[in-house]
């Protein structure tokens, strides 16, 4: 088990370095530079600014310096568009995205999994079609439609709920719902698929033949295996949820991480871009690993340690 984890972490490091390399060169390939503004700035001022951020160094030096600084100083450089350390920006915005992402995931699981299980149990009934149609809509309707609809038809009429803003716990509800609904829809479909496969297996038929009650059959026997596809999906999608969403954040005025991905590109802020991309990559690596470990625990057929084969 430990060997498996170490192995995967080393792989993860490789993935992160590849991610860094690709992001770095893509950022360099963008036209313009961070100091391009509508007003003309003198060449001298631009040269000073480049020197300030180390952008006057050779490409190779810049390429090597960033990861070295991360390892030696724990520094992700200073954002050229915000004028403050990238580490501070992530440290301030990630907790908000984490809370929002966790709530969204909670909503997604609470809605998606039961919906999937019920659909599977009542296969080809109106319950199944109804819930799967809703799930399909959930997947297809984008957040920039759901968000404003929730603002206009729910927040504006329900006292206590704000259309946008961040500060009190209530403010999490609408953005979490917007963010969670799509994931809920995917989860419902994956759970249904997983459950159907399990329910058609011999051991379930045997259990049913032995007279195990339906509830127990689901919770004790089927759910464990039926959830596997959903869990494999939750890992990376959890990483995506907690690293923020540009659309949901701008609609609901959430001070999260998602907007940095877009704004960094627009502002040609390569340090912020590298910082958030690497952070996101790190989350994906960790969450994938966690999902694999969880799968191993739930499904005895999956062995984590190759020695045990």
């Amino acid at each position, binding site marked *: 088990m430990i060997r498996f984890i170490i192995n995967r972490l080393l792989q993860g490091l490789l993935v992160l370095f590849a991610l860094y390399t690709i992001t770095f060169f893509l950022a360099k390939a*963008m*036209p*313009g*530079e961070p100091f*391009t*503004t*509508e*007003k*003309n*700035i*003198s*060449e*001298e*001022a*631009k*040269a*000073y600014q480049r020197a*300030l951020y180390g952008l006057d160094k050779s490409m190779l030096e810049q390429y090597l310096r960033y990861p070295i600084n991360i390892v030696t100083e724990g520094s992700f450089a*200073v954002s050229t568009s*915000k*004028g*403050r350390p990238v580490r*501070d*920006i992530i440290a*301030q*915005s990630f907790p908000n995205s984490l809370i929002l992402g966790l709530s969204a995931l*909670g909503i997604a*699981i*609470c*809605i998606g*999994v*039961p919906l999937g299980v019920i659909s599977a149990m009542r296969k080809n009934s109106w319950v199944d079609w109804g819930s799967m149609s809703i799930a399909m809509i959930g997947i297809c309707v984008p957040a920039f439609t759901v968000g*404003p609809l929730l*603002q*206009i038809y729910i*927040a*504006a*009429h*329900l*006292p*206590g*709920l*704000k*259309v*946008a*803003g*961040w500060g*009190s*716990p*209530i403010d999490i*509800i609408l953005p979490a719902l917007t963010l969670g609904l799509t994931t809920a829809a995917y989860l419902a479909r994956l759970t249904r698929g997983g459950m159907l496969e399990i329910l058609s297996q011999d051991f379930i038929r045997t259990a049913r033949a032995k007279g195990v009650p339906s509830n127990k059959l689901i919770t004790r026997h089927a759910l464990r295996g039926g959830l596997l596809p959903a869990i494999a999906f939750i890992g990376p999608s959890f990483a995506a949820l907690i690293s923020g969403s540009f659309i949901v954040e*701008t*609609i*609901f*005025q959430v*001070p*999260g991480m998602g*907007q940095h991905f877009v704004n960094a590109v*627009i502002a*040609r802020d390569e340090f912020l871009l590298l910082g958030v991309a690497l952070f996101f990559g790190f989350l994906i690596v960790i969450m994938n690993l966690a999902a694999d470990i969880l799968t191993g625990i739930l499904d005895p057929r999956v062995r984590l340690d190759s020695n045990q084969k």
Partner: protein
Amino acid sequence: MMRQFLIFLATSTALVMSGCDSSQTAVDKATDKGILIMGNTSEPKGLDPHIVSGVLENNVIRALFEGLVVEHPSKDGVALPGMAEKWYPKDPQKPDEWIFELRKDAQWSDGTPITADDFIFSFRRILTPALASDYSFMLYYIKDAEPYHKSQRTYLLCRDIAPFKDNWDMVKGVDLGPNGEAEPDFNKKGIDHLKIEELIELQKDPSLFEWPENISERIRTLIVDKNLEFSQSDKSLWELINFGASAEGPHTLKVILNSPIPFLPEITKHYTWFPVPRHVLEKYGKEKVWERIPEWTYPENIVSNGAFILNSWKFNEHIEVKRNPKYWDANNVGINGIRYLPISNLYTEDRMYYDGQMHLTYSLAPELIQYSRERYPNEVRNELYLGTYFIRTNVTREPFTDPKVRIAFSKAMDQEALIENVLKGGQKPAGGLVPPFGEYEASNSVGFDPEGARKLLAEAGFPGGEGLPDIEFLTTDKETAKAMAEALQAMWKQNLGANVKIKQMEWTSYITTMFEKKYDLAAGGWIGDYLDPLTFLDMWMKDGGNNRTGWHSPKFEVLLKKAADTGDPQARYRTLEEAETLLLSERPILPLYWYTRNYLIHQDLKGWNPLILDNHPYKFLKLERQQKSKSEK
């Protein structure tokens, strides 16, 4: 699982209900506390007045810092006392030397007195090349500010010695400053920027530098020798200049300008002229004060001199300022604080306003103007703003080398139809480049005239658009930019028979492409920095960094020079009007409309009057509960 979900639902409902007090909105509560809540589009890049260059930063900085004079709350172009109690030109006929008498009771928010030295320090700081301020040129009016900021070492060393005196033009053509395209290496760096070793090398072998032929051996040697001598001394460039600003006493600031400027107080309202606290910056190191130190503006460190001080700054959430008890006019400050919300999505901002979450929006989405007028008739504002939207033509490319073609394209644009059907923001059709304000007479030479346009195009050799090459219209990737470009494309097709292709680019790429002049027509605009026509006109000089059209005219520059030397404001305006007429007669830019600002303002907020620069002085505002029931909610 279902049970957990139900528990979650019940908890959230309970939370909702506990937080609910339907009788009071966030705005009501804020009004009672005297806190103004306003939209501010985005997170500021910083709060250092010498580093930032944006409108949203200006909105916060104006609360925290105060310059020599402040804006009048309702009259454009009128200055009220700020850090200066009195100000006057020494010679009213020739206002090129000004005295600002500072108030003796002015102090920083930590109690340290503010003196004229604080201003001198601040002017020097923003002009220091190493600070790399975007906006230093706002101080170029001060004598010797420009050569210092541009590190024009040779000019400063040689301007007073015999061969150059009164004849500085003789070195025109020498690469004194950096020239990215020049070869060899020494020319690329420019003589002004060569280091000691390089100068010694150059002294030994002057051919390392490619001198223009008209520069004699003697002059070449003199220039190199002077530069080397200076580099080897311990002197800094600052000691070499006769800087125009000086402290005539602790509370008297004298400013000598390059030429008479009757509107100098207007310029000093700009945040680039604001003082910053030297004693606070020095905490980070005596020599570091000339560099960027973002930390000094963090809430726990910042010291300011305005009506408000920074209370809290939550990244991407809000910036909050509160009353500054040490402010000289603290007793007359009408509100207790301001909360700025960085709302980038304008629909979200407007919905938050409808929801009673803010007093003032930054903007109003064009699609919501009609809705807002119906629901909140007294809360919608549409005001003229000191900005012009125009289209640049690249006069170095066919067919726009011909002024007739440019004017034809200008006359073919139906400004009113565009405003009515596409922009919908109540903008004003531009009659010229400079928007109407004060006593400057705005031009009305631009307008829709399809007949005249066709005639001009035919005269230029393209009757009915025949023979016109395909034209590329560069614009940004915004939805509104696209809609506008499509409308113009149709107008040019219909009225001139021109085939115009639209090229949309994301912001930085668009700017870069325009800088490199890789366009035929390019959407653009300009917001005035101060209340004077010059802010719109001087950019079209030959070396104007924001020109980017390739157009220039010696006659135009003579007129600007003439205006600069004129002390009398009225005569100066007339000369500038003449310059604008000349510019429009050649039409390197096609003015489209004058900007307006649309926004929502809550009835509780008093004293927020239309100001063309939109720089509202916050201290005159008041918040009073309006006795009206909100029908919404």
